[in-house]
């Protein structure tokens, strides 16, 4: 069993509910895609190439201050539940963790974690640098990212072309290799049925949306991951500036939707959020999906000051620790244990009860 306590903040400092625009924006993430010149990209390389890339990155990381003391997890040497835990913490992609049906992690697949910064090695690109921050903090996250990128880039020769910029396995990431994203809670827009229009509008201004776990995942609990679609032709600053403006606009729409609901149907909203809270407080079995949907209601209730005394931190913690692999690890169960829904309900009750004292 891996020990995430080795990682400062357990790698989830961004859960603390601090940061601008919390609780609507859970977290911000900055990601840069980089490859080492002279090595085939991960999908085309042999095991020996990938292991060599990992060795080079690990050696360089020891000399980069923002990765000093980073903990390295070799996904190719971990059991599936541990890999799933890392994925549930948004530290590694599904692909890198080898969680696809019948999948296995590639040789040399690893993640180095140090607080809010992490480096995935041998994903689709040799390096996927990421910085996670609480709330809306893309600019701050990028400042941190620059130090990480510059530090590694001075030691490792990145694949770069004067016209095309940073070269990536998929051309959708070429140029800056920069993907900014926010995990955002939009129940107001979903309940007022305005979400479709907003998501359509996003596509027109160069943003895209995904589910809770990024590419290919479903939207649950009204959580959307918004990110920039294009990475080439604009400077990092312009990309982030535009992204930040659009996200602030989406937040404003969400606030408007909540205001409209509270003006036109306050009793229904109040009933909905208290029912969600009641189910979470007293249910005896809960699936993860149901938990997420109910937490969405409680989160809305807390944000509208309808449900007093429930901290955003507790709601965020529930979001992470009611996931299957986390819950199983926490309660000493197997991931496939049929009693997990009962265990989950007990865990939720325990945390919500503790909020009352």
């Amino acid at each position, binding site marked *: 069993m891996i020990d995430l306590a080795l990682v400062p903040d357990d790698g989830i400092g961004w859960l603390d509910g601090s940061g601008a625009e919390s609780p609507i924006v859970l977290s911000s993430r900055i990601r840069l895609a980089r490859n080492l010149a002279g090595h085939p990209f991960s999908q085309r390389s042999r095991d020996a190439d990938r292991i060599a890339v990992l060795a080079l990155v690990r050696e360089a990381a020891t000399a980069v201050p923002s990765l000093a003391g980073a903990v390295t997890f070799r996904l190719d040497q971990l059991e599936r539940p541990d890999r799933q835990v890392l994925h549930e913490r948004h530290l590694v992609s599904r692909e890198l963790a080898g969680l696809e049906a019948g999948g296995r992690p590639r040789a040399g697949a690893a993640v180095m974690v140090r607080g809010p910064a992490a480096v995935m090695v041998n994903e689709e690109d040799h390096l996927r640098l990421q910085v996670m921050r609480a709330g809306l*903090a893309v600019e701050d996250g990028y400042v941190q990212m620059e130090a990480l990128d510059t530090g590694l880039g001075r030691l490792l020769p990145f694949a770069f072309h004067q016209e095309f910029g940073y070269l990536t396995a998929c051309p959708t990431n070429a140029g800056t290799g920069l993907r900014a994203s926010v995990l955002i809670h939009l129940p107001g827009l979903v309940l007022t049925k305005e979400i479709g229009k907003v998501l359509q509008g996003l596509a027109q201004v160069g943003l895209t949306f995904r589910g809770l776990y990024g590419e290919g995942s479903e939207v649950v609990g009204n959580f959307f991951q918004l990110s920039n679609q294009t990475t080439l032709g604009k400077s990092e600053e312009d990309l982030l500036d535009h992204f930040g403006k659009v996200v602030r606009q989406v937040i404003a729409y969400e606030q408007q939707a909540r205001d409209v609901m509270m003006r036109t149907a306050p009793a229904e909203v109040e009933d909905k959020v208290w029912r969600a809270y009641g189910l979470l407080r007293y249910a005896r079995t809960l699936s993860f999906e149901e938990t997420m949907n109910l937490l969405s209601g409680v989160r809305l209730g807390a944000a509208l000051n309808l449900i007093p005394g429930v901290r955003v931190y507790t709601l965020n913690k529930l979001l992470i620790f009611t996931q299957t692999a986390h819950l199983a690890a926490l309660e000493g169960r197997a991931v496939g244990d049929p009693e997990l829904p009962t265990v989950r309900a007990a865990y939720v009750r325990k945390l919500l009860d503790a909020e009352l004292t």
Partner: protein
Amino acid sequence: MRCDHCGLRDAVINLTQVEHDTKVTLHLCEECAQQKGIETGGAVLQSPLGGFITAMGKGPASPAPRPAAPAERCPACGATLQDFRESGRLGCGACYLAFEAHVRDLLRRLHGSSQHAGERYLAPGELAPDPRAELLDLRDRLRRAVETENFELAAELRDRIRVLE
């Protein structure tokens, strides 16, 4: 707007083609677009690059450099254009040059540009940028951060300026 082809359903796709140096824009409904071999809706979503890659090499290519034939190989990793069409992934950095015309065309369609406008990378051993220029840039960003009352960012930038100074 009605579909230009069947005139019955609403047009959902604008298809712009260049025929004999003339630009023709067709407004098509989903069904007619599919008949013309254009993917719509779910199929496109499943593979965001699918449509682009399939169209690669079929559209009007840039005059120079010479477009690679599907079987031509990247001299560094041995990947072919066919491999790229199937996987949606290039084999290595040198593939960008081996299939330059296609890649440039694709990048323009994906991003609206193929010219990198972001940070210039300096490989290990290359001359480091002038710290004075970097300081000026950071001070400029600090000024803007203060103006927009982004004090957390301002604090981070101030720390970096102190280190450089």
